[in-house]
């Protein structure tokens, strides 16, 4: 295992210490782990918090700052954080206007954030959990834990963060976040595996000429393996999985202020004429130069399908340690989303 680390058990802590030193505009708490804006709570503003396993940097900690997140809770590498982290973080950043948890749809994240929401609500703090489940590689929600939360998370943190900054109240933030999730779809491709420090060896083995299609962000295997193809072919495949994805329905559980309530949600497919934000992401080990080859083809496929890319984001924003590969996210962009996308942001990992 070749990594810039000391002892495997200190990886997350020491990386947080590095972030704290490099970014005095963040406050980093170690027991339990969370980071938040040093100027939090921001008076009158809804607090937006996300979190998840470490190993996806800059997400989420790198998106803490004005215009994006108020706080982030990092778990161990690829392991969801625990409720006490979200609880302490929420208490540190809540200004009284309530807390929105942006939760990627992984069983662990969902359950830990649910437990956290109960704790936070128990203290009389207004709280909402909104799921991101945008990974079209997962086809059904009946026989699985549902679509994983991937690239759309980054876009949601930008858009909802800007909304909170503009004065949206908690319910408006939650509605917007739900809309962004329903408007966003992603698909990922791995060229190499990645190594969890504590495990010491790659999570899966991939042949010299193989790629893994339809991956999540934890080095888990995808839907299928195939020989590596040209970037045009792989991009076209990924883009079509997203653009041709039919309506997707599932039940999500949201906190209604008193208790958990099931909600039926259906994401409509993309339609000709849609404006989209295109996000081409590196899984960590793929350099930005190669992402532009993906973007080139993605633009062509979108045009051919009648979608217009009106904004884009190209770079490593939601990663799987040092994995080589890419993911594509398309987010249907209405005027509200576009305006918030263009709003200023000032975080270690995203500046506008």
């Amino acid at each position, binding site marked *: 295992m070749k990594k810039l680390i000391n002892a495997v058990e200190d990886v997350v802590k020491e990386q947080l210490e590095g972030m704290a030193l490099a970014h005095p505009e963040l406050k980093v708490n170690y027991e339990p782990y969370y980071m938040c804006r040093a100027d939090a709570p921001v008076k009158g503003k809804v607090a937006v918090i996300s979190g998840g396993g470490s190993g996806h940097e800059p997400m989420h900690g790198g998106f803490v700052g004005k215009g994006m997140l108020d706080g982030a809770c990092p778990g161990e590498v690829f392991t969801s954080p*625990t409720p006490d982290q979200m609880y302490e973080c929420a208490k540190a950043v809540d200004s009284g206007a309530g807390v929105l948890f942006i939760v990627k749809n992984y*069983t662990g994240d969902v359950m*830990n954030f649910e437990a956290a929401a109960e704790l936070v609500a128990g203290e009389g703090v207004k709280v909402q959990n909104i799921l991101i489940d945008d990974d079209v590689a997962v086809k059904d929600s009946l026989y699985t*834990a549902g679509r994983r939360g991937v690239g759309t998370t980054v876009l949601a943190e930008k858009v909802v963060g800007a909304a909170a900054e503009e004065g949206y109240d908690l319910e408006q933030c939650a509605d917007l976040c739900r809309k962004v999730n329903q408007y966003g779809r992603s698909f990922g491709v791995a060229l190499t595996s990645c190594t969890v420090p504590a*495990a010491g060896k790659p999570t899966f083995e991939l042949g010299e000429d193989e790629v893994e299609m339809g991956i*999540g962000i934890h080095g888990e295997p995808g839907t299928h393996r195939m020989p590596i193809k040209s970037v045009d072919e792989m991009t076209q495949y990924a883009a079509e999985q997203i653009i041709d994805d039919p309506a997707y329905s599932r039940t999500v559980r949201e906190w209604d202020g008193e208790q958990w309530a099931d909600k039926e949600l259906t994401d409509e497919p993309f339609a000709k004429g849609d404006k989209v934000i295109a996000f081409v992401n590196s899984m960590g080990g793929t350099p930005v130069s190669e992402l532009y080859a993906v973007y080139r083809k993605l633009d062509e496929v979108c045009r051919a399908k009648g979608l217009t890319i009106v904004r884009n984001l190209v770079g490593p924003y939601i990663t799987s340690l040092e994995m080589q590969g890419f993911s594509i996210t398309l987010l249907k962009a209405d005027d509200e989303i576009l305006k918030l996308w263009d709003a200023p942001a000032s975080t270690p990992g995203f500046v506008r």
Partner: protein
Amino acid sequence: MSMNKAQLVTWLGKLNDVYAEKKEYLTELDAAIGDADHGINMNRGFGKVMEKLPTVEDKDIGTILKTVGMTLMSSVGGASGPLYGTFWMKGGMLLAGKDELAADDFVQFIEAGVGGILQRGRPELGDKTMYDLWAPVLEAMKDEAGNASEVIAVVDAALPVAEKALADTIPLQAKKGRASYLGERSIGHQDPGATSSYYMIETLRDVLAG
């Protein structure tokens, strides 16, 4: 015979040993159909339980169970963290003030715990999760307790059921948790969470047998 506090404390200590010993094995099971962290998670969690235990050892069983639950909840992470956290916490809430458990108390603890797992994870039978172990185990325990039996008899009755239920997770296709993303590829592997749950019963049996 009922189960006393010393036995509970011994159980927890032995569980810590077991999860240390089985860390790699549980992680390998999880590598096959999940994300290769279940052994690491359980080991970290029970390590923390050992750190916390001395501060509550002289309290009542309810407090001890609640502390175990809260500690697991805030140290295991992943899916199993809130599930086991809830499992032990629910038991603790139920048994507040008790210093020993009759067979009935014990079965109520397990029933409350399994109820917690159901509430949190909403697993269904056959989803290939720890619930596929706890559901038949709880039935067997209830049946045995109905005979006005002792705790050790209740656990004895549950052990072979647990063993079978564990093996029965192998042919299942996962429909909850990370393993569900593998679809049919999850078939043929033993569920890591059911395995760590099995150790809880097996270890308790050893403790009670002395």
